[in-house]
């Protein structure tokens, strides 16, 4: 679908904005017993929302704060917890037409061993955000969160909430299983049925637990070293989905890779094609060049944009084959490494700007991603 826009009024879809909850107690109306007592009683409620956190902060402590200090709302609560403040602090100053909300607290579910608790928390969080953010302003859209603890339950939730106004995608948490596993099939099936793309975002637990996915090689020493190699996990899951034939099983499935970077596609796509062509029997499920699956089924967000210094380097970064149709703008507001929208958009080649700022988002999520314009 092609959207025509007036010059100077180009819509901007920010595909990575994180909403948080003010306090765990706001989820109370959305939790049935025994989960209300489970989450709100005892030691958990005493630690505010800090327990809902995937990264093992005693293993990899952030050297500063994980959020921008200027994104703390005047009304109190953590950064990203006030829909009005997010509009005045981020959307309006930069002319953001749509913010795709990727809820952050559910990332903590990645370390839950209890599948039923995981589902209860995800449901409560999704319903809270639908009621308080999507109904607050049409500039907000939501990627509802599910995890693979219980794929059938996740699929049921996708079918239940997938047509709610403003729900435009599914945020699927990466746990220990690779994304190509048949375990995910019920989730992919439901997402395709509801015409919702699946978004993968780092949950923070990567490299932390015996049951989480890890970067290659071993244990990075510091937060920065670990953060350097986190994109490997995104790349590995892409590879796994292609090798295991996910897109042969689900030809309409769309995947949005959020905050994994994109410049590594340059080597990954050419390497997978070259090695597959050297032995086409290596995977019986690959029917065509692996990079074609990427171009057809995947999109990638801009943040964190590589800080290249030379024009030739920037041209090469954006010169990756088919990138003009795969790239989505994102800021990662309100995190410490938010990319300034003006700076990012300024670096995108002119001929790609419309596609990156909104057209690719429309192709991926449908026209409903621009719900504030309708």
């Amino acid at each position, binding site marked *: 679908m092609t959207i025509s826009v007036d010059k100077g009024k180009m819509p901007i879809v920010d595909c990575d904005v994180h909403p948080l909850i003010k306090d765990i107690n706001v989820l109370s109306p959305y939790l049935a017993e025994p989960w209300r007592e489970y989450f709100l009683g005892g030691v958990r409620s005493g630690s505010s929302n800090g327990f809902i956190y995937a990264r093992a902060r005693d293993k990899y402590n952030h050297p500063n704060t994980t959020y921008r200090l200027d994104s703390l709302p005047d009304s109190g609560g953590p950064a990203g917890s006030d829909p009005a403040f997010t509009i005045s602090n981020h959307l309006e100053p930069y002319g953001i037409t749509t913010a795709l909300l990727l809820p952050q607290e559910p990332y903590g579910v990645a370390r839950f061993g209890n599948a039923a608790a995981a589902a209860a928390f995800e449901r409560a969080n999704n319903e809270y955000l639908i009621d308080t953010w999507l109904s607050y302003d049409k500039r907000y859209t939501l990627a509802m969160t599910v995890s693979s603890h219980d794929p059938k339950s996740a699929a049921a939730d996708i079918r239940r909430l997938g047509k709610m106004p403003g729900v435009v995608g599914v945020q699927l948490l990466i746990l220990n299983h690779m994304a190509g596993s048949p375990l995910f099939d019920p989730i992919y099936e439901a997402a395709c049925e509801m015409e919702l793309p699946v978004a993968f975002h780092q949950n923070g637990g990567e490299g932390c637990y015996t049951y989480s996915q890890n970067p*290659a090689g071993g244990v990075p020493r510091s937060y920065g*070293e670990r953060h350097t190699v986190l994109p490997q996990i995104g*790349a*590995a899951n892409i590879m796994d989905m292609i090798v295991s034939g996910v897109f042969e099983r689900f030809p309409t499935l769309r995947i949005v890779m959020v905050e994994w970077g994109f*410049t590594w596609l340059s080597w990954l796509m050419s390497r997978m094609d070259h090695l*597959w062509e050297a032995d086409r029997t290596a995977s019986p499920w690959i029917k065509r060049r692996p990079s074609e699956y990427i171009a057809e089924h995947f999109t990638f967000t801009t943040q964190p944009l590589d800080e290249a210094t030379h024009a030739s380097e920037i041209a090469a970064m954006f*010169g*990756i*084959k088919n990138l003009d149709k795969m790239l989505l703008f994102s800021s990662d507001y309100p995190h410490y490494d938010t990319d300034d929208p003006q700076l990012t958009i300024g670096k995108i080649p002119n001929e790609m700007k419309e596609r990156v700022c909104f057209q690719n988002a429309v192709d991926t999520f449908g026209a409903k991603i621009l719900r504030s314009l309708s």
Partner: protein
Amino acid sequence: MIVDCARHAGVKRHQDLFDYMPHSWQKHFDRYEWTGAVDLTSNHIRVSSKFRHDPIPEYKPGAEPDRMTLVIPHQGLTVNGWADRVGAKVYLDALNSYGEAHWVSSSSKLAMVVSPHDPVWSASEIRRRGASPKIGGVCIPLSTEMLGTRHWDPIYEACIERGLPVVIHYSGVEGSYTGAPPLAGSVHQNALSRLILMPQLAESNAASLLFEGAFYRFPKLQIFFAGFGFKWIPSLMRRVDQEWRNFRSDMPWLLDEPSKKVLSNMWFSSYPVGEAGGLVAWEGEFSAALRKRIVFNSHAPFGNDTVEDVERVLGKTWVDSMMRNGRALLRYKTGTEA
């Protein structure tokens, strides 16, 4: 002159190593399951389903005045998946001795393999063998101990003392055998996935070397990532510098952008050059300084890129540069160039 900075050689039979072991260890290794496992150690990328190689031809170097080759005894790299770390040292000692006897010529040198599990023993082996002109490098099989940690300092110290580059190449059991390093993610579907993702092992260990300040401790240390390709480097260089800028207070021992050490202390190789097509689209990411760190390797007999292959994909300018770089890496003297 063709400078091939990484080709492979292996024994056809494990029994061929017995002459290079003490008698008691011959008796230890003379068992059906070990001698029969030569096909496993010879498979360059260990398979779980498909993707395998035919038995490799024997490497017999001759005197080739127009060629210099660094030979990796790839079977030795597989000790990174061995359970018996004591036996592994005996095996490596025998393999290195066999390699010195059979794979070295006036135009080829051996990259001796050391144990990742015992750096002190490895350092003594480097000092013992490394003075010989037969030795051109030191292969460290990858372990879960990242290369930037102080675990490796005895090995690095010995390499510098002997003027030898460290050579890093995957064994093929990574992401497959317990004890060997994992690949990114979790359990992979098949060998094609694993082979495609191998460069991430180099990425992680390069990041470790840079962030742990290994090149501040050992300014002369040279690390050669062989067989991982090279297109992944610019993305990593930008990323490490961004992390350093974000978190300088977290790593005060790093005095400058980490990527600068890539340009002074790391080397990368061309294989598989077929993945580097479309030069015009990506060449802008490679500064002149970075191009000086990329050498030619054939990877023979696995894949076996030729110089003609490289020229067809990258052009003659890149080939000439790679040969110059290879001479610098291997410290061969050719003509007036030292």
